[in-house]
């Protein structure tokens, strides 16, 4: 940076000293920057869900004078064969997908926390059983399991939500189990044990706070998976019912109109889905950077 800027102190003083080094730019610290990113992502997603819920009725409005229109100023994402506005449908569908994802991922993380803790603290037999269960769940492709579970529950909202919830916990459960096994040996836990704390108190007071950050990050990073799998399952016909404006429904319906050249039916909703998932990813990874002790100080 050899350029002199008129507002630099040396210029003001009338000295012709070249500025050899100056801080690149004044900016907020990395930490608050990350916090800002997280806040923005969270805000955007909340707006998405609320506005999506709000336009839910509008999204189902049909207008046969306006059918099969390409994207334009009036209908940003175009309209479908029933004259429904694709932008509103996408918004409503995304909010539904996000809600299913949130519910399923939270339930899944809850299962992971419970089973991971029980495996680590419940003694050898329970540990073996739960580890085997984790291996079993990871041994069958998610989609196959999801299809089976959703079918067993009669499809629909609960089929897909419970399906996603009971298939996504194993990786997080493994992490939590390892973390608790590690903290079990920590001196402060040993001390508490020697002081006569009960096993439940030990787990609740000394171990859970230790794994909580990992748990939170794992939970947020589960969201994108849950949303994508919800969309996939609905797309295959095992998820939400066809009358609901879910993203998977929109995309699977668009398949019948592809050869007619109605590309906007598939492209825009998909882009919106990818953007939403990216936002969740962003929120999750910035949260990890904030919470993880290895990077929190950077």
């Amino acid at each position: 940076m050899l350029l002199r800027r008129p507002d630099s102190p040396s210029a003001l003083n009338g000295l012709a000293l070249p500025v050899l080094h100056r801080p690149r730019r004044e900016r907020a610290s990395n930490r608050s920057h990350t916090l800002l990113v997280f806040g923005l992502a969270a805000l955007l997603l909340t707006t998405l869900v609320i506005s999506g819920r709000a336009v839910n009725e509008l999204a189902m409005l049909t207008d046969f004078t306006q059918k099969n229109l390409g994207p334009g100023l009036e209908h940003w994402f175009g309209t479908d064969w029933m004259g429904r506005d694709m932008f509103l449908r996408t918004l409503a569908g995304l909010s539904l997908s996000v809600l299913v994802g949130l519910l399923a991922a939270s339930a899944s993380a809850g299962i992971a926390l419970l089973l991971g803790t029980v495996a680590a603290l419940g003694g050898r037999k329970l540990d073996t059983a739960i580890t085997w269960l984790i291996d079993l769940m990871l041994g069958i492709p998610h989609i196959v399991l999801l299809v089976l579970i959703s079918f067993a529950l009669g499809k629909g909202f609960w089929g897909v939500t419970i399906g996603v919830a009971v298939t996504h916990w194993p990786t997080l459960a493994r992490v939590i189990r390892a973390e608790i096994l590690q903290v079990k040996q920590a001196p402060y836990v040993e001390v508490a044990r020697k002081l006569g704390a009960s096993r439940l108190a030990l787990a609740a007071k000394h171990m859970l706070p230790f794994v909580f950050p990992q748990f939170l990050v794992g939970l947020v990073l589960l969201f994108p998976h849950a949303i994508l799998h919800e969309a996939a399952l609905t797309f295959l016909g095992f998820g939400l019912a066809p009358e609901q404006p879910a993203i998977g429904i929109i995309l699977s319906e668009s398949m019948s109109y592809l050869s007619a050249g109605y590309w906007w039916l598939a492209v825009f909703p998909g882009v919106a889905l990818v953007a939403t998932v990216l936002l969740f990813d962003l929120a999750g990874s910035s949260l990890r950077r904030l919470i993880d002790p290895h990077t929190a100080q950077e």
Partner: protein
Amino acid sequence: MASFLLRNILKFLLLLLATSVLVFVLVSISPLDPVQMNVDQAAYLTMSPEKKAQLAEYWGTNTPLWERYAHWFGDFLRGDLGTSLRFNAPVADVIALRFFNSLALMIVAWILSGVLGFALGIGAAVKRGGFVDRIIKGYCLILAATPAFWLGLVLLIIFSVTLGWFPVGFSVPIGVSSADLTPFDSLRHLILPAATLSVVGVANIALHTREKALDTRESEFFQFAEARGLSTWQAMRQHGLRNLLLPALTLQFAQVAELFGGSVLVEQVFSYPGLGSAAVTAGLGGDAALLAAIALISAALVFLGNLIANILYGVIDPRLRRGRHARAKKDRAGAEDAPS
């Protein structure tokens, strides 16, 4: 070695047993009536009660779960996979051709995504922090958020509908019997699904290889090679690649589950007649025998992939082999008090 083999065979059999039980339990607790699902709505309403009873008999709705499972299990032990009620044909016949279709799709995608991902990962690491690195990283992050079926739809719109280069679906051209099929035809129908599956699979392997390659760049032998006057590319080729190849291969083997999951979706988009689309059909119709067979095949493939990955881990890093032994011994000593 013998104990290793024995343990894994035992694990494998247990996995298959658990999977088959799971499939049968889940299919039979479903509130959905298989008769109603496999018959046209209008036909169902006008159907006589006798006909309904006959169909219910055919779908085994009145046979208790354990009886159906025992029946299936007995047949399975004799090498008979049962009858697909949906296709009204032996499961083995339904699956045979589809299995090879799916296998071809998955193998092509597996190799392509592996090679491409590895190359991108190395490229990004060599150009660390530069423009190329950012592009590759961004590309991978976006890909990781992209559902395979949507990408398939987009490719279908671009290459089949707009450009007309590829057929819109099916593995055989319409009006041609599968007997007159030329290898060129099958190839043409394989390209788009395989491309979709490979593009999606690239992200993980590229990001992983990039991380590993950056570690390698920090290592002393690599910096020494650069100090001797080799360019980063040369040093990477002569000293980096062989360090990076095996971990990438291992990861690729460990990802078979995702590959299979992706192929289910992609087959559905391209109406590609493979195991995935059969699984969806079977699932929509509640066809337990067919679902069980497909679930078993997928579980076996994933198990094989993980097994190879585990063996490769040991090959890469002998410490891990010993480490696993030591850990196993410690576990035996008692999980409660052993320091971990």
